């Protein structure tokens, strides 16, 4: 299990170990996904968030199982962090019938409603207003569910971003807008095309929101800031926007080597890799290294097992082609 769903029975330290395990699982999953891409098991495209795991793990740990995640096409980590097993995610990447959506969505659209993962959206910015709608539904129905919407720094200059922020603010919706600022849009540095230094946080005041910036490579810091924002939203105090500073170790997508980035920049951020930093912190806090070695071996075994299970899946059958265009399960548009 890669779940880091808030579990109150965990002790302080157990909770941190669980967040570490989540980060390791996300990292090893995506390293394997990259290998599978090079081996041509993963077709099409995929967008890895290696280097950004502290955000997915930290926020998911602050959420309740009934809360909703809205992710982007760079959504493997956010999907797994909510407790979705690895096998169907690998299988979806490989276009197999045992995939999370039986191969009909692919890497960019991972969705698992039973885990609160309400979709991964591949048109920049589109899901911010959609997350508002889920939050509106919770508000209207009087549940205390919260919607968390992740997006990258490249999303802050598209219209839907601004429409959603204003909309959430005026209706005081229980939604958290979480910007993962990894400094690079796709192949262009975000600062070169953005009017403000902190692309999300500097816009917050335009919508009456507090400017919140967090170290996105520190799962504890992410967990703390997310917990506060979620508590505010749950209490009816409206939306928050959080900007996390982070870095993707790889390129934008597929086999993009990211050569447009200066070597020293990558080297600097590799020193801030969230996983070894968190591991050191746990050891300093007295966690036994043997426990972590067992945990890491366990994750590796989980990745191996899931890889094999996914590879064993059949190709989706022709019967799926017309299935579920419509709510009655059919694909028929005429009589």
């Amino acid at each position: 299990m890669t779940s880091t769903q808030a579990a109150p029975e965990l002790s302080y330290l157990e909770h941190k170990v669980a967040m570490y395990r989540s980060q390791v699982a996300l990292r090893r999953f995506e390293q394997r996904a990259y290998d599978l891409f090079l081996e041509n098991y993963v077709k099409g495209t995929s967008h890895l968030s290696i280097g950004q795991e502290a955000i997915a793990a930290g926020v998911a740990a602050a959420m309740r199982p009934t809360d909703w995640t809205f992710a982007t096409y760079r959504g493997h980590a956010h999907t797994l962090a909510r407790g979705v097993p690895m096998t169907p995610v690998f299988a979806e990447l490989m276009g197999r019938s045992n995939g999370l959506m039986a191969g009909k969505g692919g890497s960019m659209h991972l969705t698992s409603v039973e885990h609160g993962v309400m979709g991964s959206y591949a048109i920049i910015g589109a899901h911010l207003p959609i997350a508002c709608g889920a939050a509106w539904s919770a508000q209207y129905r009087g549940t205390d569910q919260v919607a968390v919407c992740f997006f990258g720094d490249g999303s802050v200059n598209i219209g839907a971003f601004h429409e959603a922020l204003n909309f959430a603010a005026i209706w005081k919706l229980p939604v958290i807008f979480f910007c993962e600022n990894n400094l690079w849009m796709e192949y262009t540095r975000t600062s070169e095309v953005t009017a403000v230094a902190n692309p999300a946080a500097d816009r917050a005041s335009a919508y009456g929101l507090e400017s919140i910036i967090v170290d996105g490579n520190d799962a504890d810091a992410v967990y703390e800031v997310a917990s506060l924002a979620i508590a505010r939203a749950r209490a009816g105090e409206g939306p928050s926007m959080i900007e996390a500073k982070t870095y993707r170790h790889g390129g934008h997508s597929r086999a993009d080597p990211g050569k447009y980035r200066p070597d020293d920049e990558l080297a600097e951020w590799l020193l801030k890799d969230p996983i070894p930093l968190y591991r050191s912190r746990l050891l300093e806090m007295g966690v036994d290294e043997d426990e972590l070695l067992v945990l890491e071996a366990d994750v590796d075994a989980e990745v191996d097992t899931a890889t094999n299970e996914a590879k064993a899946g059949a190709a989706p059958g022709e019967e799926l082609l017309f299935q579920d265009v419509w709510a009655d399960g059919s694909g028929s548009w005429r009589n």
Partner: protein
Amino acid sequence: MAQLTFREAIARGIAQEMRRDESVVFLGEDVGAAGGVFKGTVGLFEEFGPLRVRDTPISEQAILGAAMGASMTGLRPIAEIMFADFFAVCWDIVANEIAKSRYMTNGQLTFPLVIRSGNGGGLRFGAQHSQSVENWAMMIPGLKVVVPSNATDVIGLMAASVRDNDPVIFLEAKALYASKMDVPDGEIVDTLGSAKVLREGTDATVVALGAMVPKALAAAEELSNAGIECTVVDVRSLVPLDMTTILREVSATGRLFTVEENPRLCGWGGELSSIVSEEAFYDLDGPIVRITTPHIPLPAADALEDLAIPSVERIVTTIAKSMNS
């Protein structure tokens, strides 16, 4: 029985569904206290209050994004896009998100929502506030497209659209907002995907949609005086499309004329012609003829707009010429 305008029928149709089901909510620009720019939603705000009838900023992406997010989490929203032309500023949410997300998630999500919008010309509003966009919507897999032509159908098809579990684009012909008819009292619930035969004839079948339906009926009356008896079919719903009724009526007369307000290229009549050609070719006694708005942006001046949108006169002369040739 009460006489209602088309615009009054919209409010009655929405109210009927909001009274029945608390999960039905309504949002859009100026729809609340103002009652809608076309006065199509007068009285809803007063009856259902600001939590169920919500005014929004001028943010079409936010309106439709909110409707989508609400529909996938337990509500049945009705969203208004004031002019159908404005679909162009939120088409990503319609075409990429709402239409495809059920299929992409292998049926994990459903989107029971209605997007209603003022469609079409005739009001001298010019090229950006007069378009008939039914063909935009029809070409996207995953959207249902409903176009009523009279007040009773507005109520019944609105009910069917709200109760349907799929996203429905509900296009209201602005040119019909002031039209009146006697509407039965009590609940009215219709069926999506059912065309209606409004007039029986033996010589030709005229298939029309929305604001073109009353024009087709008027043309049929004139043609009858000239000895040409037309069947008139109101399509009512482009997706799902009732080809059973249309093929039956075309085969019965041997001729098909479509009357379309959308610009000619890729208009719905092109698809109808293709299906009829494939499936009823040997029942045809003459060519299929499409009567459409030409492939031009709509001009504002009344003299020019009247030339562009199919008129009763153009329908009559086109059909008469083709039938007599």
